[in-house]
């Protein structure tokens, strides 16, 4: 052995008595975007990992300090871009809480439909990518057309697909058209069979089970200590769900279960996400039912009657001077917000997405902080992959559902 190796502290039982440093990412296909993991390998076994977030800092929180409410909305869409409407609705719910705006029931149900669709889109991409990372490409291709269908529904609702910006304070920019409802019904009709098929591909698949069971496991106590929420926490056996503990947007009227795992490993996280997609379908069905049961004025209201915060209709803006002035006043934040300090959170696709908002009564927030679940999960990565194999690290990463946009603030 040369002198150089005498100074290296080697783990007991090393074969070659030497470790390798490997930079996993940012250019590795499984570590898209900003993730860099400097991994210390003994053979294929990981002895140490050092996770870094790259420099994509977009200064959202700083920008938000100079912008009125409506101009912050496009920023929130870009946090978790796999489920942009969820972030969007969360932001508008926060604003409504601060401003004391009460939304009509129909808005709540429409929001729930959109939010649950976004949750399904988020989960199906995560679960299918997990299959890809384990070497199974078929499932990914199979469910992808239904993510496409969800995007089509968004397109019917607001005109855009990825970063939707569809909400307004008090409701929606426009009412859902008939095509949107038809497409939602089509989704409800066809997706269960697809999801069943997707589950059949994976859940009892020997290779997939061997690759994921017992990999990246975390106990309930550790998960809580690490600030895990959403499917990652529920996989460890804690049935914490913001939709139940702090219902928003009339979630308390809905009947759904919270799928929980027991071991907190990759397999449980996968299963919890699949279970949640079934529950989301249930919720959407109930919401459609409730929408049909609404009567009279309630059945048509797609926004609250708050002209001081809700933007005038585009048709009026283009033809009436007063509407144009109001539009301008609202967008430029000429109407002051009430003073206050609040923390509002929603159950986003991958956990509790929180908005901590300090208003000093001015036109833009004094301080706005986003609690981004992905940022909080990633710090546990080092612990989760330690003593595992290199190939497991990829699966741990995809099973945590890390979205690069949420790392940043």
């Amino acid at each position, binding site marked *: 052995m040369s002198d150089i190796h005498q100074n290296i502290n080697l783990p007991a039982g090393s074969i070659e008595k030497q470790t390798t440093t490997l930079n996993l990412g940012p250019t590795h296909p499984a570590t898209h975007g900003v993730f860099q993991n400097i991994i210390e390998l003994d053979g294929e076994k990981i002895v140490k990992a050092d996770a870094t977030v790259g*420099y994509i800092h977009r200064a959202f*929180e700083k920008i938000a300090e100079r912008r009125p409410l409506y101009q912050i909305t496009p920023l929130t869409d870009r946090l978790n871009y796999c489920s942009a409407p969820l972030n969007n609705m969360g932001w508008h719910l926060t604003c409504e809480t601060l401003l004391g705006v009460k939304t009509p029931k129909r808005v709540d149900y429409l929001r729930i439909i959109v939010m649950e669709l976004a949750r399904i889109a988020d989960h199906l991409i995560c679960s299918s990518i997990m299959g890809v990372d384990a070497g199974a490409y078929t499932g990914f291709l199979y469910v992808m057309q239904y993510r496409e269908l969800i995007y089509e529904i968004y397109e019917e609702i607001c005109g855009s697909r990825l970063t939707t910006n569809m909400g307004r304070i008090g409701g929606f920019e426009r009412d859902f058209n008939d095509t949107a409802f038809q497409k939602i019904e089509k989704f409800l009709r066809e997706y269960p069979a697809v999801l069943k098929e997707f589950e059949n591909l994976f859940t009892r698949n020997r290779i997939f089970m061997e690759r994921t069971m017992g990999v990246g496991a975390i106990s309930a106590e550790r998960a809580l200590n690490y600030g895990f929420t959403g499917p990652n926490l529920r996989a460890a056996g804690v049935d914490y769900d913001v939709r139940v503990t702090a219902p928003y947007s009339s979630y308390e009227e809905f009947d759904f279960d919270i799928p929980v795992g027991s071991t907190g490993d990759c397999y449980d996280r996968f299963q919890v996400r699949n279970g949640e997609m079934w529950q989301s379908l249930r919720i959407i069905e109930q919401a459609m039912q409730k929408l049909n049961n609404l009567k009279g004025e309630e059945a048509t209201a797609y926004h609250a009657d708050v002209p001081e915060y809700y933007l005038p209709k585009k048709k009026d803006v283009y033809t009436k001077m007063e509407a144009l002035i109001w539009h301008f006043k609202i967008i430029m934040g000429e109407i002051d917000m009430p003073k206050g300090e609040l923390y509002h959170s929603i159950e986003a696709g991958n956990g509790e997405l929180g908005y901590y908002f300090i208003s000093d009564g001015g036109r833009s927030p004094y301080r706005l*902080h986003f609690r981004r679940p992905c940022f909080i999960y990633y710090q546990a990565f080092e612990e989760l992959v330690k003593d595992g194999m290199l190939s497991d690290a990829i699966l741990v990463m995809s099973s945590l559902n890390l979205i690069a946009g949420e790392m940043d603030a």
Partner: protein
Amino acid sequence: MAITNEIIQQKLTDKFGDQVSDFEVTFDTLSFNANKEINLKVLNFLQEDGLNFNFLTDLCGVHYPDRQGEELAVVYHLHNIKENIRVRFKVFTDITKPDVYTATGVFAAANWMERETFDFYGINFIGHPNLIRILNVDEMDYFPMRKEYPLEDQSRTDKDDEMFGRGGMLGFGTEKTVHGTIAEDEK
């Protein structure tokens, strides 16, 4: 017995006396301020002693330039998941000596949140295992979320008004000016 905001407030004042202050309930959440010397004691006390706040939801910094001697604040959001009650508390620190004890020993979740707060506000968390910048480049020598740094660099001339059809000057905005935009009569 369910925990209420009044019980939490009572327990805290019994234990810490006037070291905790400014109790307030905003949007159903109890918030208060604590001395920065006892931030870990407060965290531990809230976690144990029957209060069972076992979840650190959020940790972030705030800059209040107007508060003499306590310009920087660290905000903790804790959650008792079982009883479903949240609490928020702030510790204030002097901007010239921004030292606060780290909460990483109590909550593993605090690790990166404190690094982020250090990165943005320069709050020095004493005892943090790896207090380096996380979102910004390491070479940065200032803390960008503080209020003294406005959003756009005022010295930049390529963002001069004349580039956007207001004013109008030769040289396409490359001239160095003292006050930013050149006034109409000086042109």
